[in-house]
């Protein structure tokens, strides 16, 4: 086992890793930017090293300073969390050449999953269903049009290197494709320095459902019951739950089995998430795989009674994955992402938290690095807390989440709690009738109500 892990991240996920290290008896080293001097992951880690100014490119993405921090602290492994360097294959390689364990998939897997089109082709070969689409990346509009007409409209164009919705465009006709293709290329270029796109059949009314996997070094891959992530606004997940109100046990069993087979096939190691579109007939199509721990991993932990980060660390140290008991889902879990933002305009709302009362008690889990008196810096993402509710049924979980959010008091910054409460009371959400279009519809009907 490792003796000291450097955590190349910040916020709740860094704190999450600090806690897991403590439980495993491993020393933790926090790295932080000047803007995070008072961050909880820094205050609670065993050691800490300032690695640069607020700007992420000069601190959390500053590979030279991070590796120097490893050197001066004597850490023998790096946990990258999510975001920042988590899916940087080059960084994973550098770690290896420096004799450090990168706690994540091997660089080859990160590189494969980072190329969305290649990942899709590979997974198709490994047996996962994928949506009809281009088999190679497309750089040329005329090729795009040919492919699209063969697939049949509507289609969706996506950045090959992409993520987070950047470079994604839905086209319902050839003329829309003509308009959108160059825009998407420009966005992809700007966001990922790579204008390559690929084209897929667009499925309307689909759900965004993902399967968590964990693979160990002896080649065993374990997949878990689905997370339902369709409540998204502009491809940013807002509420996740497990099990999905939409997935029956047959579909679940099939998804788990097929993902385990495909992930084994490519030699998947460490934590990862296979994202699917599931259409109204319960047909599922592989979209992409994220080669890192996911923000919403806690809901899987709740229903299975496990700890994925600790398992990830153990596996990285060479242990086999041995679940503590038969892996069975019990109850229902839901996560609300509490962001420091205006609940109506979505404008970020950084600043000092003057007063804070987080929820607690039976069935409530809070993953947060916030504390009363802490200043939410304007430099990073706006996630201030993940509130996770767990109860025997979906209905009870929604009631519990509502009670938890109503009794959460965050003074000094605006948060999206009112938006969450609003969604949790939406009759369609309560009935489990939603897909990836839900938030857009919900927000526009609410806007109409208010102006009408």
């Amino acid at each position, binding site marked *: 086992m490792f003796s000291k892990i450097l955590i190349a991240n910040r916020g709740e996920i860094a704190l999450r890793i600090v806690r897991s290290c403590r439980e495993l008896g491993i020393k933790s080293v926090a790295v932080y930017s000047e803007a995070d001097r008072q961050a909880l992951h820094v205050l609670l880690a065993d050691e800490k090293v300032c690695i640069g100014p607020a700007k992420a490119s000069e601190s959390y993405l500053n590979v030279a300073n991070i590796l120097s921090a490893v050197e001066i602290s004597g850490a023998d492994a790096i946990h990258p969390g999510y975001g920042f360097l988590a899916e940087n294959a080059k960084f994973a390689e550098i770690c290896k050449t420096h004799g450090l364990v990168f706690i994540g998939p091997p660089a080859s897997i990160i590189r494969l999953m980072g190329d969305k089109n290649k990942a899709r082709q590979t997974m198709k070969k490994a047996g996962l269903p994928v949506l009809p689409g281009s088999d190679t990346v497309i750089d040329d509009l005329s090729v795009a049009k040919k492919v699209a007409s063969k697939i049949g409209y509507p289609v969706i164009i996506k950045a090959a290197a992409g993520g987070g919705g950047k470079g994604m465009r839905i086209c319902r006709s050839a003329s829309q494709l003509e308009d959108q293709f160059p825009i998407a290329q420009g966005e992809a270029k700007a966001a990922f320095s790579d204008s390559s796109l690929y084209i897929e059949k667009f499925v309307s009314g689909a759900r965004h459902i993902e399967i968590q996997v964990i693979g160990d070094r002896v080649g065993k891959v374990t997949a878990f019951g689905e997370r339902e992530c369709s409540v998204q606004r502009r491809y940013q997940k807002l509420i996740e739950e497990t099990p999905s109100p939409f997935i029956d046990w047959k579909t679940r069993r099939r998804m788990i089995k097929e993902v385990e087979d495909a992930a084994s096939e490519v030699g998947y190691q460490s934590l990862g998430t296979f994202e699917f579109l599931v259409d109204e007939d319960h047909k599922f199509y592989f979209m992409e795989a994220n080669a890192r721990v996911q923000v919403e991993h806690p809901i899987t932990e709740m229903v299975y009674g496990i700890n994925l980060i600790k398992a990830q660390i153990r596996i990285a140290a060479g242990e086999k994955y041995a679940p503590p008991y038969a892996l069975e889902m019990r109850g229902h879990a839901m996560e609300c992402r509490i962001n420091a933002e205006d609940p109506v305009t979505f404008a970020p709302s950084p600043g000092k938290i*003057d007063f804070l009362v987080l929820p607690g008690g039976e069935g409530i889990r809070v993953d947060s690095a916030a504390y009363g008196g802490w200043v939410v810096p304007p430099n990073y993402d706006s996630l201030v807390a993940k509130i996770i509710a767990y109860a025997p049924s979906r209905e009870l979980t929604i009631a519990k989440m*509502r009670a938890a959010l*109503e009794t*959460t*008091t965050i*003074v000094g910054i605006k948060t999206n709690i*009112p938006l969450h*409460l*609003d969604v949790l*009371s939406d009759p369609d959400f309560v009935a489990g009738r939603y897909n990836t279009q839900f938030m857009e519809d919900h927000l526009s009907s609410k806007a109409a109500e208010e102006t009408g």
Partner: protein
Amino acid sequence: MNEKNIKALEPAESAMGGKIDYDEVRKLVGLLEEKNLSVFELEVEGLKIKIARNSPGAAPLMAAAPAVSAAPETPEAAAAAEARAQAIEAAKGHHLITSPMVGTFYRAPDPTSAPFVDIGDTVKKGQTLCIIEAMKLMNEIEADVDGTIVEIYAENAKPVEYGQKLFAILPVS
């Protein structure tokens, strides 16, 4: 009971002398409402102010969630006024009569009679000011100083808590 009343806290902590600017208090209360604060502390020129409010969470937006239907019974303005009034009483040295029990407040012995006292009335120590009904018993509440009634806080036939302000009396000095 569900009033969103804003109150200056424990007397010891809201030690307000003549220095206090009531416009400042009003601004604070406004801030409380705007920011949806539950508890608020401020220190100005060695003076510590702490204000608390009975509404965790974002009231106007929470109303959108049916489960949180508890609509304010008294407008926020009234609450602000109460905080102001309380600060003024403390500053002026008015004598406060508070409820010694939980019950229902009555200003008159029966619905057809005139109130025991009204604002401006002179009262003597021992004189009945009101009745509080608790456990089906009528409890007469008496003045414990001589003076003039300057404020009546409780409403006729409405519930009162233990310690709730009922009357302010300007004592005969």
